[in-house]
């Protein structure tokens, strides 16, 4: 137990150092506004892919409606700050909770389905959420909710991302997390062992949806606007792609996938007409050559490179 804490503290320290470096670089204007925007976007995408990984990777429930929860978080957060004039901190909390609540309500009936059917149902629900928002005049309808103040800073985005990663990592190692892994491996066997499969599936789905909501609040408060067109099923595909590319069921994989794809997309921004073509070709070639994702379901750690073997194999634990 002690070693786990020590390891966590060491990671936290490393995060603090990374934060200090990037913050300093931002402060002295070494990183221009374009890359600052992309760093924030990377962090938001990391939250999204890590939270989707909890549902798709750890619990094995194939959900592709994540953009819907992102939208709920973005709009709820924006209502709190713009319409009600309340502080950003409250927007984060309410955005997360409302998204989680919706995830709970949606998860309860749909998680009875499995495989492709669940995928299609979540895809449909994500679109229904978007179309409903599109038809609500209070939040701007088709033209979107404008005039959102930019409260999201690098510090907010960074520490919330770290928080989400830690929560999900600890959830995975907790008793309910183990139940989720058991459901992924074999649902029928898990049920026979006395695991309440519905309960844990819905739990994972709710947590995942909630954190997608958090990402939504950050997103809306960085880009000044919450627009229905940002939350189409293409956005859900984007997030899913990050998770699968990194390796389904791997936390570091999800993070790498998010960083890599967002960075590729940003680096290609200079060639707008070629951007999506190269992006899609990269995707196809990577998937053909590594169908299990970059890391499979393994976690990336220093040990992989033969360095720092003092983690007692915790971080390299395979499924």
């Amino acid at each position, binding site marked *: 137990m002690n070693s786990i804490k020590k390891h966590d503290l060491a990671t936290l320290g490393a995060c603090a150092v990374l934060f200090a470096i990037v913050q300093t670089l931002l402060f002295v204007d070494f990183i221009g506004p374009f890359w600052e925007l992309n760093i924030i976007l990377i962090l938001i995408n990391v939250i999204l892919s890590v939270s989707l990984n909890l549902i798709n990777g750890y619990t094995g429930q194939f959900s592709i409606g994540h953009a819907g929860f992102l939208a709920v978080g973005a709009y709820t957060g924006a209502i709190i700050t713009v319409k009600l004039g309340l502080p950003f901190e409250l927007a984060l909390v309410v955005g997360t909770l409302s998204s989680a609540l919706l995830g709970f309500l949606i998860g309860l009936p*749909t998680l009875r*389905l499995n495989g492709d059917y669940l995928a299609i*149902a979540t895809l449909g629900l994500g679109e229904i959420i978007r179309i409903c928002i599109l038809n609500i005049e209070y939040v701007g309808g088709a033209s979107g909710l404008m005039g959102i103040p930019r409260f999201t800073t690098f510090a907010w985005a960074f520490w919330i991302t770290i928080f989400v990663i830690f929560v999900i990592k600890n959830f995975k190692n907790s008793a309910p997390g183990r139940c989720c892994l058991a459901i992924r491996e074999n649902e029928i066997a898990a049920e026979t062992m006395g695991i309440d499969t519905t309960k844990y599936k819905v739990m994972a789905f709710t947590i995942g949806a909630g954190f997608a909501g958090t990402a939504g609040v950050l997103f809306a408060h960085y880009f000044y606007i919450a627009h229905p067109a940002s939350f189409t099923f293409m956005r859900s595909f984007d997030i899913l792609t990050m998770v699968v590319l990194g390796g389904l069921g791997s936390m570091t994989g999800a993070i790498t996938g998010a960083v890599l794809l967002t960075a590729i997309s940003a680096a290609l921004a200079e060639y707008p*007409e070629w951007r*999506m073509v190269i992006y899609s070709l990269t995707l196809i070639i990577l998937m*053909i050559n590594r169908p299990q994702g970059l890391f499979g379901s393994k976690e990336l750690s220093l040990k992989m490179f033969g360095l720092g073997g003092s983690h007692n194999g915790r971080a390299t634990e395979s499924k």
Partner: protein
Amino acid sequence: MDMGSFAQQFAQQLINGISLGSIYALIALGYTMIYGIIKLINFAHGDIYMLGAYMGFVATTMLGLSFVPALIFAMVAAGIAGIIIERVAYRPMRNAPRIAILITAIGVSFFLEYGMILIATPQPRTFPPIFEATIYKFYGLIVNSQQILILVISLVLMAGLTYIVNKTKVGKAMRAVSFDADAARLMGINIDRIISMTFALGSSLAAAAGVLVGVYYNSIDPLMGMMPGLKAFIAAVLGGIGIIPGAMLGGVIMGIVEAMVSGFFSSTFRDAAAFGILILILLYRPSGILGKNIKEKV
């Protein structure tokens, strides 16, 4: 609204719905055949439909073909495209996890969409009026000759497909592969060839739908396949995925519901209605209207 005009409006939307629905049915057939044979939700299928529309455009404007040759040209071209896509992107992944193939399909979909934007610019193009619209009126109902054309062509193609699947040797092999691929292989069926054939057939049907939509709406653009592709997929699920008559039925039902929702409520809720149907059918009858419930064995 009194009863008479309600009935008239209802009949009018029914006509519009059936013609829209036969388009969905044509696309849904490809989805259902491909799903039936390799259990892949081919997200690129909607973009094959777009490709077909552009091929029809090329055939009529650059090659100066008339309607039927242009339709055949588009179907053949899209069929070849389908074979190439399967060969290059899906065949290397035959044994990969299904989610990986799904991501590849999404990648192919992006590639077709943005590749087409690169070649043909994102601006919508006006489809040449190769089939004049004549308006027939009877009992106050308006029927466009193009709607009749859509219906007739769809019926002919569906009849052709039903014949191929049920009466020919290739069709028999397709059914065998979709029933049990390993057993089919043991019986000496060349699975790869049959899968290629399935992609060719499905893609050419989608291309026909693309040309028909081009003729009917006069406008095509590189992203036109996204929504209809998704809806046709819902239609396939609605009828029972993997079941060919189910796709036709599902397509027509989807078309009618959409036309009714736009006619009687608001067209902004049209898409929500489509997804609403999807959720309901998944919750209450996940195997679709014509599907059989198969118990999972432990």
